[in-house]
């Protein structure tokens, strides 16, 4: 790249570059300056000093966090809740897509699909409101659980044993239909000749599913798994903030909700920032880990 190409490029394309200025400014202000703001995590923040001139205290905030009993609790909750959630909610849309794929009546299939997308369009606040109501005293699902002998009639949102199952299975309800779209798209792309060949070889439907269908959509499954694992640390804190209560913090509080509560609600900016940075760090680590494991064993990877 010499001076001359830079010059001709400038003469030819400068009007496009001018158009790009608002976009660049947006990303600088709302994405890159906050990255500089991470230094807040290494300071003892004071309103007078702002994040440029507050006192530098190095890793003190991190040391405080690592020593506090929050570290273990938050890490455990974040991983445990999300891993349970992945175990249930990752396969569910795949299974639904496989079941829908076997339906021959296209009209029936369409109706079921449309109904199953519905929860995805309902806002998180309304969903959490419905959950809170259904599991309250005399609530619709509390009474169902009472009839099945699984619970007593009381406000189950205050009982910590119920938080994880409620969080996870309501997540299934919200996302199973919408999540199946991408797998149905992958399924429609499977080569039909493979099935014909398998039929001639005498393979039944079940064997066709195991040996043709699933291997054919496995690249999609793997990409989705990498994306799910890499977003594990940032997952749905909105829902947790809406559902948890002081009585259930012990099992429900994750790093993201803690940053929100301690950092923004209680105004502990520097400490919150350092915990948030710790979170981003683990998140990046998970992304690279998931990606490299997948590249090694399946030749499918994000980058």
């Amino acid at each position, binding site marked *: 790249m010499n001076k001359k190409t830079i010059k001709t490029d400038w003469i030819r394309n400068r009007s496009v570059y001018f158009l790009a200025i608002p976009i660049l400014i947006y990303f600088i202000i709302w994405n890159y300056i906050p990255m500089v703001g991470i230094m807040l995590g290494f300071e003892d923040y004071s309103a007078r000093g702002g994040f440029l001139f507050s006192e530098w205290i190095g890793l003190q905030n991190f040391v405080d966090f690592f020593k506090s009993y929050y570290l273990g609790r938050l890490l455990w909750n974040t991983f445990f809740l999300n891993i349970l959630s992945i175990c249930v909610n990752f396969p569910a849309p795949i299974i639904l897509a496989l079941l829908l794929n076997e*339906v021959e009546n296209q009209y029936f299939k369409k109706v079921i699909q449309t109904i199953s*997308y519905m929860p995805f369009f309902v806002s998180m606040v309304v969903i959490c409101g419905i959950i809170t109501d259904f599991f309250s005293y005399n609530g*619709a699902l509390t009474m169902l659980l009472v009839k099945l002998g699984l619970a007593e009639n009381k406000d189950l949102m205050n009982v910590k044993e119920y938080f994880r199952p409620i969080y996870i299975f309501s997540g299934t309800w919200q996302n199973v239909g919408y999540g199946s779209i991408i797998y149905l798209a992958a399924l429609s792309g499977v080569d039909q000749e493979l099935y014909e060949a398998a039929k001639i070889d005498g393979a039944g439907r079940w064997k066709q599913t195991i040996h043709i269908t699933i291997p054919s959509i496995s690249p999609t499954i793997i990409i989705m798994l990498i994306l799910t694992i890499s977003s594990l640390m940032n997952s749905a804190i*909105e829902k947790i903030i809406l559902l948890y209560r002081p009585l259930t913090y012990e099992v429900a509080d994750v790093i993201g909700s803690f940053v929100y509560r301690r950092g923004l609600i209680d105004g502990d900016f520097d400490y*919150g*920032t350092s915990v948030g940075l710790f979170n981003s760090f683990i998140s990046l680590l998970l992304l690279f880990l998931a990606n490299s494991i997948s590249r090694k064993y399946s030749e499918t990877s994000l980058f």
Partner: protein
Amino acid sequence: MKIKESPSRIVFKIINTLLLLLLAFACLSPLLHVFFASFSDPTLLTQYQGGMILWPLSDSTHPLTFKGYSFVLGNSSLIRGYANTFFYVGAGTLLSVLLCSLGGYCVSRRGTLWMKYLIIIMTFTMFFGGGMIPLYMVNKFLGIVNTRWVIVIMGVISVFNVIIVRTAFQAIPASLEESAQLDGAGHLTILFRITLPLAKATIAVIALFYAVGKWNEYLTAAIYLTDRKLYPLQIILREILIMSSGTSEFDLGAEAGSYNLYKRLLQYSTIIFATLPILCVYPFVQKYFVKGVMIGSIKG
């Protein structure tokens, strides 16, 4: 020629149909419960212990009621929340579509020296960011905390959408734009007169994604707004549905003493009132969402 199906295949089909019907019921029943309960008699509703309500509760002495809805329509915070949300969704969607297409247009230009760096600058932010608090400090420094601007600006450019728009723009034959350029059209003319109209299906998809997301968004407003006059619908809903503190904002008139009796009815009516627009629209727009997922998956 019809091949006769084996008995096991028929059994499977029956079980499969039943499973899918069960799923459809599971998806619908919570909202049916809320819908039927919102017309039910408040006394019967408070005493009810039978689980899901799949038919309105009423008897000869306790008739069906629309009281819940009349109280909802009389709640000024709720109505104002609705109006605010309409503003945030409208202004946000317009600005978002504008900026994402502008971004998509810039990074889809062939033969530019520097645009590839803009793509890198944008993509990097998908994987790493400063976090909630530094972002808050930046907005505070800019003086837009607790104004309408912050709600409109936060998340207005989505990198994902820019990339989707770029893919759509790149599919447009370069000759079309070149001939316009020869006729003396500038970039903005090309963008608005040629590129955008040709990619309107993709633009519709990103506009719908953004609009539904903005309608449902809660956390941004919870972080940045403290002025009740600016609250979007979702914050008011949280007060009414989850904190139960919002129910005292309803003007119950002559029955002001019986909040506890009306609490559930008010909550159910509020849910229907707040969700009805989305529920009416979604069967018609869902095909665009399906399309959006497909576009995204090709890119991913």
